[in-house]
């Protein structure tokens, strides 16, 4: 049906509301069991769709398809424990459900009416299994504003979005509000861009609206490129209509009739959901000509990235949408003045748009009350790396790193020591333990030498070498440099050259000085944000972990035991049983020995491939920096590897 009025919206809402209410915990006697299967990328990758199909088959086989519905939903955020399956009523939260578990699940829960204990979340500290979300610590400290629909609605059903008050804000804006009024509300809310730099969103809208040129465009930047960040993807996968609605509102406010969503081609599920959402919105008359019976037209089209991180930079993104090389250009003119095809263009990122509808629904006053003095509202972070609960979280601005990492994230696995958290991706920096109690917002992160970025958080432990991490990021930034300006094209290459030298044991003390100087010059001189921020990983690690650099350069050792060239493998003579397996595994004949004699590794020949370590049945081969092994003896373990024995063996 074509939706023309708020009444029409209400009718749709009424139809879908009972389903939603049940999922939110109402026992409304619906006579229906709803099984929510997480269909985000992470769960998808661990076969959640296979689970879903088998569930459907099993239910059909048992004749339960009438009173049971299997529903796709967006990311719950608890990716570490995926695939997630949630059963309503009751809100029973099953973790790590494998296709092989389906039959038992149906038998026990749906037929037997009992909770299948072994698939419930297991709280390691209490040793108990907990049936519902409310009991899981991971969710307790979060406040889901942007992610409110993820895990609740079926992202492929527009009706369910409407049932969650979706498109009411759009209707209100188009039918009852002036443009200036809406922009003013966004301004007052204090919303800032969630893509990285934190430019005030309302101001951006105002600037674009003020341009006296037609046509204008609205662009959603969904080119989430930070490695280890997947907030935007989860929003697009779990709640695509929230972005569509906000873009339409933005179009109305700035006077644009066409929008583009620039999305990574590496996000096939997000693309599919967006395509479905746009189709459904068009069919419902919520995109297209004459929205809500007015003369306001707005339509959307998808554009696809093709693997270039720099396209997250707004001017590069514009070039890419126009089918060109994604190279940034100098600003001014800003996209608000000259954007797509030289016309005024508003660019916001996914999460920013997702905040807009909330603000309009709940009121700017409410939104303004959330967060810190400079940064309002909430922020979605993706937690990854050396952390127990990898996943997607949303917390109010101003939450401390400690809460995020140790409370929500469940701390570091294996009882290892926290070393740093990297925020802001390749543009950000590594924040050490002393800032764990820092309430985070745009300003505090910047002061700590990092940045908000899009919200990726990678936790590192004692097994991570900070010099190597800096090198890793520089490798990334250099690889993704568009090649246009000198400091980024050549400068980051030289930074990388120096860092590579250091990690290979060829560094000199002057290199450290040169690293710093060159970093500052690149930051000063680069044309776009990518280049300007590319040295941040170097500067922040130099600032907080200088001793590690010095160890690499002066002592030629890698304290974390990561940099291969600085490692030495030795055979623990006490453990060695002289089986000779290690010598056979060695591709370069670096290991020699004789029966009943401990084997030895020739450090000159050794290529540090660690093949021998994997083969040794007695874990007799140890890794460490030559003299340290002798000095530290049993302590050598501190410097070993990145995790379990297997990883240690290969690093």
């Amino acid at each position, binding site marked *: 049906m074509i939706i023309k009025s708020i009444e029409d919206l209400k009718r749709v809402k009424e139809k879908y509301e009972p389903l939603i209410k049940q999922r939110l915990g109402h026992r409304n006697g619906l006579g229906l069991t709803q099984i929510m299967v997480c269909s985000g990328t992470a769960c998808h*990758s661990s076969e959640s769709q296979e689970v879903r199909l088998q569930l459907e088959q099993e239910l059909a086989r048992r004749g339960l398809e009438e009173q049971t519905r299997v529903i796709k939903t967006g990311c719950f955020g608890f990716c570490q424990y995926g695939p997630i399956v949630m059963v309503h009523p009751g809100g029973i939260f099953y973790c790590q459900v494998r296709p092989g578990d389906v039959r038992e699940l149906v038998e026990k829960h749906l037929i037997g009416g009992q909770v299948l204990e072994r698939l419930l979340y297991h709280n390691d500290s209490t040793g108990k299994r907990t049936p519902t979300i409310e009991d899981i610590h991971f969710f307790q400290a979060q406040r889901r504003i942007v992610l409110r629909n993820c895990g609740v609605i079926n992202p492929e059903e527009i009706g369910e979005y409407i049932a969650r008050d979706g498109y009411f804000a759009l209707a209100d804006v188009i039918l009852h509000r002036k443009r200036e009024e809406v922009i003013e509300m966004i301004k007052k809310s204090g919303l800032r861009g969630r893509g990285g730099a934190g430019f005030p969103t309302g101001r951006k809208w105002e600037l674009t609206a003020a341009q006296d040129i037609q046509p204008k465009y609205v662009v959603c930047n969904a080119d989430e490129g930070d490695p280890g960040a997947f907030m935007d993807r989860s929003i697009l996968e779990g709640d695509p209509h929230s972005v569509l609605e906000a873009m339409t509102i933005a179009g109305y406010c700035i006077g644009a009739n066409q929008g583009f969503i620039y999305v990574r081609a590496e996000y096939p599920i997000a693309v599919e959901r967006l395509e479905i959402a746009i189709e459904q919105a068009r069919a419902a008359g919520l995109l297209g000509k004459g929205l809500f019976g007015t003369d306001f037209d707005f339509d959307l089209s998808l554009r696809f990235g093709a693997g270039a991180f720099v396209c997250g930079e707004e001017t590069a993104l514009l070039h890419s949408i126009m089918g060109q090389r994604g190279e940034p250009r100098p600003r001014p003119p800003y996209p608000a003045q000259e954007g797509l095809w030289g016309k005024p263009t508003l660019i916001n990122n996914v999460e920013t748009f997702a905040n807009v509808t909330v603000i309009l629904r709940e009121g700017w006053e409410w939104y303004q009350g959330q967060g810190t003095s400079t940064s309002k509202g909430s922020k979605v972070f993706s937690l990854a790396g050396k952390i127990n609960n990898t*996943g997607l979280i949303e917390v109010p601005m101003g939450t401390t790193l400690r809460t995020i990492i140790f409370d929500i994230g469940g701390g570091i696995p294996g009882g290892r020591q926290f070393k740093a958290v990297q925020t802001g991706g390749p543009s950000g920096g590594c924040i050490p333990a002393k800032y764990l109690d820092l309430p985070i917002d745009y300003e505090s992160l910047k002061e700590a030498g990092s940045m908000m970025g899009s919200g990726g958080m990678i936790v590192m432990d004692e097994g991570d070498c900070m010099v190597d991490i800096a090198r890793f990021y520089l490798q990334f930034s250099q690889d993704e440099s568009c090649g246009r300006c000198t400091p980024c094209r050549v400068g980051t290459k030289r930074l990388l050259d120096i860092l590579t030298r250091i990690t290979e044991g060829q560094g000199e003390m002057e290199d450290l000085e040169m690293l710093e100087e060159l970093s500052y010059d690149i930051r000063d001189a680069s044309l776009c944000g990518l280049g300007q921020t590319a040295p941040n990983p170097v500067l922040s690690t130099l600032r907080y972990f200088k001793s590690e650099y010095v160890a690499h350069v002066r002592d030629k050792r890698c304290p974390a035991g990561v940099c291969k060239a600085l490692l030495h493998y030795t055979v623990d003579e006490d453990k060695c049983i002289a089986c000779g397996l290690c010598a056979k595994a060695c591709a370069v004949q670096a290991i020699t020995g004789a029966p009943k004699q401990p084997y030895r590794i020739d450090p000159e020949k050794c290529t540090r491939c660690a093949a021998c370590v994997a083969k040794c049945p007695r874990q007799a081969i140890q890794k460490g920096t030559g003299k340290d092994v002798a000095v530290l003896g049993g302590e050598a373990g501190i410097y070993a590897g990145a995790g379990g024995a297997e990883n240690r063996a290969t690093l």
Partner: protein
Amino acid sequence: MAEHNVTGQTIIVQELPFKDVPEKKDLLQEDHRSKQFADMDRVIRLYAGERGQLIRILQKAQEIFGYLPEEVQAYIAEKLEIPVSEVNGVVTFYSLFATEPKGKYTLSVCMGTACYVKGAQALMDALKEELKIDEGETTPDGVFTIKSTRCVGACGLAPILMANEDVYGKASPGEIKKIIQTCRKGESVDHKKH
């Protein structure tokens, strides 16, 4: 090449040599090829009306041809009436475009940060060692291509190895052999490791 001769005796100057045209391939292959170009024409017709859809057209072309040979790039340039240098500039800029044929299986290691700190490099090294090729290369038998890929956003499963579309989460170097064997047997890589 123009043969300059100081004596002034050089007579007819040869124009620059053009690459020789290779021998005609068998008809079957030719048929397949013209079908691909017919598909290509449909794609171009679909998108040519919209401005700035070059990247989408190239993506579709890569789906059709498996990669983007020079002739296909030139063909698209001709049809869209844009300079071939520009098309080539775009193709070489974006990492998802391939200008060399890929193997039957593309094994990609996610090199996102989360995967990196969880040992993606070791995974990559093991892969290179096992297949005896470097990143971006294809085995001589045309079965495997190794690639490093940008964060796929499934950081909970780090480190991640992908065989075509199939995801192997929490992969370890020890499993590489098994995965390769599965592919070699020609089985679809449907069983997923966890």
